[in-house]
Every structure is written in C-alpha cells, then in structure tokens.
C-alpha cells in the first residue's frame, strides 16, 4: 500500500512538471498547445534511447531529452508563429500524433508499438524496489521544487510581463519594441523543456515506454490538472496535478465494483468517467481551485475574442 502511494506521488510529480511547463506556454504566453504529449514523448524516447543504445549515463540522457524537447518546441513555435487559435490547436494536436506515428513505425529505432523495455533506472541495482520508489519520489519532488521556484520567480520577472503583454495584445507588445517572435519561441521552448524532462523522468521510472502511452488523453490530463488548479497560478499547477492523479487512481477502484464488466468495458468506463469529469470541471469551475488573484502578475486571458484589458 505504501508503495502504491509512493508510486502515485511520483505520477503526481511528473504531472506537476508537465503542468508547470504548460503554465508557461498557455498560462503566461497564452499560446495554445494541444500537443503536450508529443514533447513528453520526445523527452522520454531520447533519454531512453541514449541510455539503452549508446549506454550513456542516465543524467546525460535526461539532460539530452530535456534539451531536445526544448529544441523541438522552438521549431514548432517558429513554424506555427503565424497561426492563431483553431489552426494552432489543430497543428499542435497533429504534431503529437505525428510523433506517435513515427514512434510506432520506426521499428529499428523505437521497437515500434511493442515499445522499449529495460530502460535503465538510476541506482536500480543498488536499491530494493521500495527504496527505489522512495528515492525516485524524492528526485521528482526535488525537480518539481526547483522548477516551481524558478517559474514562480520567472512569473514576477520582466520576461513574464512581456509574455503576458503578448498574450493580451500582440500588436501592442510589438509596438512597444518587444520582439514578439523571440519571446514566443522562448516561452514555447522553455515549456517544452519541462515537458521533455517529465517524459525522460517517466521513462527511467517505469523502465518501459510505448507509443500507446503518448495518446491525447494524457494531454487532457495535464489540461485538466491546470484547469483544476487554476491556469496561470504556479501553485495551481502542483495542486491540480495531485488532485488529478488522485482522481485517476480512484477511478481504478470504481470499475471493479460493477459486476459483469469485461476488462475492455472496465477500461472504457474509466476513460469515460475521466473525460466526463473534465467536461464537468471545464463547465462549472474553469477558474480552478486556486483562482489567481487579479493583482498576480500572471492573470490568464479570457480566451478568444473576449480578451480583458491588461491590468498592469
């Protein structure tokens, strides 16, 4: 049971890293990214492949995964810079699907849909499974703390102020002499780095990754985490991640209570419950558990046309 809770804690930490990354892209810069899971997959695959095939140290793998996810994020931002709204939503979603298609089909590299197994665990040989779980929880928690403090500081910086200005009105920001493109790319790259880091940490924890893991549902979980916690609120990202993981795990216990369900039906019911609760949360509490105070330097935009005037 303790082991199960620790594993849940690790999941929550990985979700929190992703939610923090999304908070920079979406919460601060107001950029739409429905392809989170693509960057997560890039981080996971790069780190896993470098350690599996080239036998590089895990730390290097994680760094490379993070870095490459950032680079891919920068490229996606550069390519999509002229796109807005729905078009950006479609392209980012398409990007994540393309990553999954590549991972499923380049069998010589990624072992296709069977996935990569036996990914190295840090100190996996020295620790018992229980010790390893605890160690990993500490590692992930440390990463979350570092990223949290960094992003919290960042949200008070002139850099985040410019991002917010871009989110509110790109034209005004550019008239004020800010290079909008550069700021957008930086925000996207930074957020993607956090997503890649989460992916790399995930791979080295479960020791197994496969294209099936990187489905759009995972993107929804992170959106859900941020929405539950409160978009634009750094604390919200962490609280939301914990709430979402707890909820996801608790649905595991609901399906066995209904007699006569097959395994497929149980899984279907679980995904159904999860997506319906996202709809309900979106509908009735879109400001989250921790709504950002209006004086907070990162007030999220009302999406779309009804943008509120900037409060500086």
């Amino acid at each position, binding site marked *: 049971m303790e082991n199960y809770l620790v594993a849940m804690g690790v999941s929550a930490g990985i979700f929190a890293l992703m939610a923090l990354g999304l908070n920079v892209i979406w919460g601060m810069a107001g950029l*739409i990214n429905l392809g989170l899971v693509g960057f997560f997959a890039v981080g996971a695959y790069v780190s896993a492949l470098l350690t599996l095939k080239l036998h590089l140290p895990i730390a290097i793998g994680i760094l490379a995964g993070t870095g490459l996810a950032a680079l891919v994020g920068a490229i996606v931002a550069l390519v999509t810079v002229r796109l807005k709204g729905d078009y950006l939503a479609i392209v980012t979603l398409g990007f994540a699907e393309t990553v999954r298609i590549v991972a499923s089909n380049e069998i010589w590299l990624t072992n296709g849909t069977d996935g990569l197994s036996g990914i190295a665990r840090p100190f996996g040989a020295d620790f018992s499974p229980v010790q390893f779980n605890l160690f990993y929880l500490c590692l992930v928690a440390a990463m979350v703390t570092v990223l949290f403090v960094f992003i919290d500081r960042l949200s008070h910086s002139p850099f985040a102020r410019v991002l917010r200005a871009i989110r509110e009105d790109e034209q005004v920001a550019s008239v004020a002499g800010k290079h909008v493109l550069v700021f957008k790319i930086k925000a996207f790259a930074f957020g993607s780095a956090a997503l890649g880091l989460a992916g790399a940490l995930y791979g080295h924890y479960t020791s197994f990754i496969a294209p099936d893991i990187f489905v759009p549902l995972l993107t*929804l979980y992170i959106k859900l985490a941020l929405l539950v916690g409160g978009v634009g609120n750094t604390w919200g990202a962490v609280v939301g991640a914990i709430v979402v993981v707890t909820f996801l795990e608790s649905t595991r216990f609901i399906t066995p209570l209904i007699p006569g369900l097959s395994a497929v039906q149980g899984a279907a*019911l679980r995904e159904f419950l999860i997506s319906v609760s996202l*709809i309900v949360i979106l509908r009735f509490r879109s400001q989250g558990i921790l709504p950002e105070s209006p004086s907070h330097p990162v007030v999220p935009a009302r999406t779309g046309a009804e943008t509120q005037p900037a409060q500086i």
Partner: protein
Amino acid sequence: MVTEVLQLIINGIMAGTILAVPAIGLTAIFAVLRFANFALASHATIGAFAGLVANVNFGLPIVPSLLFAFLVAAVVGVVTDEFVLKPFRAAGFITTAIGSIALTIALENVVRFIFGNELRGYDLPIRRDWRFEGIRIGPQQVENLVIAVAVMAAVFLFLMLTRIGKAMRAVADNPMLANIKGINAEMVARIVSFVGMGLAGLGGMLIGLDTTIDPLTGFRSMLSIFAAAVVGGLGSIPGAVVGALTVGIGEELSLLFLSPNYRSAVGFFTILLVLIFRPRGILGQRAL
C-alpha cells in the same frame, strides 16, 4: 511506373472524395459555430458502428445503412452539442476545442463499451475488381465515390436552394446581420450540428466500407479530415472538397516513398505546408 502513379492518383481521388464528406461537415460547423469541433472523430465512429448494426444485424443494404449512419450520428451530434458543447462556446474557442476533445474520448468509450475493441467488417457482396490497361478499380470504391458525390450535391443544393440553407449561409457570413434579419441563430446552430455530424457519421461509414472498423476508426481519420478542411480553408465548403482531394491524392502518392503507416502524418505535413504559405487555406476562410 506511369501505371503505378496513375493507379495511386485514381485511388487518391476515390479516397479524397470520401474524405470530403466529413470534411464538409467539419467546415460547415466551423463556418457557423466558429470552433474546431474535435468531437467529429467520435461521430464518424458512431456513424460507422450505426451503419454496421443496420447492415449486419438488421441486414439492410449499404445505402439505407448509410442513411441510418447519418441519422444516428446527426441525432447524437445535436444532443451532445446542445448539452455539452453549447455552454462552452461562451467561454471561447479554446475551451470549446478542449471540451470537444473530452467529448470525443467519452463517446468513443461508449462505443468501446458496447462493441469492444475487435475489428469488424460490413456485409458486402464479394466482387471482382475491374481492370483497364493494368489499372485496378474496385466496384465498391466506385459505388462509394458515386454516393459521396451524390451526398455533396445534396448538401450543395440544400445550402443554395432551401430557406434553411440560405439562413445557414447568412449566419456564417455575418451573424449580427442575420440576427437583425430575424434568423434564429440557435435553430441554425442545431441544424448545422445535425447536418455536420450526420455527414461525419456517413463519412465514417464510407471510410469503414473500404476496410474494417473499430472504436478508433474516427480518430485515425481525424488528421486527414482536419487536413482536408484546413488545406481548403476552414469554413469554406468548396475548399473542403478541394482540400480533401489534395490530401487524398497526396496521401496516396506518398506511398511511392513512404510506408502506408505514415498516411496520417502526410495529412499533418500538408496542413503545415499549406498554412506556412497560405495561413487561411487555399480558398481562404469563410467562403461558405
């Protein structure tokens, strides 16, 4: 080589014509309601399975089954739009887009709950392919093509000639002016959901007729359908047809140098290429 390319182009035209049906549904919904409705994927799946029940369980021929697929997806589309997506629209397009992804996963799992994950096929008469100078054409494919063209013609006539069709075009063109002229925007929204999701369902079954179906049928085609609508310009019905043919032929021609598994990725790269050079698609936005 020439025969091979010609064969791929013919296959592409057939695939593209079928793709145009759900793409028209998507683009019509975008033109009137102004958001990218990702729930289209699950409605295509629902249509494919409704058609399967009509065809296999009730023993109906293909054309009535397609009609059934249209109706079931259309009704589900109106109901879910009314109770799930409509309240989101006030909150902006991105919330609506996320909501529609959640809806598509929820509905897909309803289908999975009922039918399971197994691949299923329609009851089709087995017919020999026609051959001309080394080019193969399946009779079923031709039938699908004729059906798709007939459906498109019907949609076009509906928009051009009927009062409701004209009202839809008016709302797409200028919602405020349409409102002043006394057009009931809510009613138009319901009708566009009915027609749009119905077309998605019909398209889902047409796509399934060529192969087999499972709960992910709609989702797998989603990138191609979105590519078709985006390439032609979201909101433009002629654009959706041009886009669908472009994507259909492009996906087939990619087989010359890519594995067939990369078909959806081709849709994605077509979107990227077109959007980089023409951010509003080939025929521009809102030319419904």
